[in-house]
């Protein structure tokens, strides 16, 4: 129960890292020529989409032993969609590291500007941690209600 709250909190925190980088780039404190553009947002968007995909799968269908829905390959299809979601999530993290390296580290920028890339990495990693926490919590809760129903 508490981990669902924590998951929402981590999600908000990771969103605010990227928003902070974007608004810092527009503020008066940014003395460099670098600005946060749409490229910096793409990894976060991928990670959030992956989180949506993962959490919209009904977890009882992953086991493959549910009789309620017809069709042979339901569990297989659900696992494919799940793989797609995890790939989006990991792709978001990898993409944010790519943006950090290619856009900021390779051009030898100093610290206040380097934060734009680091914030992107923190954001994607935070979305990943949040969805992992939510996944574990919901699986535990499902187990609990199952035992209760029996």
């Amino acid at each position, binding site marked *: *129960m508490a981990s*669902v*709250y*924590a*998951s*929402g*909190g*981590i*999600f*908000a*925190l990771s969103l*605010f890292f990227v*928003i*902070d980088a974007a*608004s*810092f780039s527009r*503020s*008066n*404190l940014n003395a460099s020529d670098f600005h946060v553009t749409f490229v910096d947002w793409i990894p976060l968007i991928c990670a959030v989409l992956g989180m949506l995909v993962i959490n919209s799968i009904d977890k009882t269908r992953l086991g493959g032993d549910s009789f309620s829905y017809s069709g042979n390959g339901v569990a297989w299809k659900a696992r494919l969609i799940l793989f797609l979601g995890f790939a989006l999530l990991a792709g978001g993290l990898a993409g944010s590291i790519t943006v950090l390296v290619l856009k900021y580290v390779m051009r030898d920028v100093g610290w206040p500007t380097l934060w734009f890339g680091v914030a992107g990495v923190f954001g994607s990693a935070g979305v990943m941690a949040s969805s992992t926490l*939510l996944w574990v*919590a*919901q699986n535990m*809760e*499902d187990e609990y*209600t199952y035992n209760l*129903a029996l």
Partner: protein
Amino acid sequence: MALAGLKTIIALSFVLAIGFLLVILSAALWKNYLTLLVVLTYVVAPLPNWLCGRAANYDDFVDGGGAGVVDLGRFLTGFFVVTGIAMPALFAHCGLINSAAMVMSIIGGLLIYGTIISFTMFFQEEEEF
């Protein structure tokens, strides 16, 4: 909960007033009213929990499908609480507000949210079936 007397109400209203005082001072001292957004965040924060709890009550024993809605409410509540802390920090980091205003608005917002939470804990009506 046990009997919540008059003293609890008085103490809670004092804490709420101090919280509002801190947030309003943090806005008015520097003539920068961005920190008032914290109050909005913390007032909105308990709402998803209440709404989703009420929505899940109806079919709780029928098919157990209400757990997802309750989880969504908790997720959104956690989201708003952390937003209330992170937003002043963002403003201070980007030079929009003073850092003293940040500290005052965070403490004031936490006091307001704590008041709301403890009020619902003390004065929760017991459900009857």
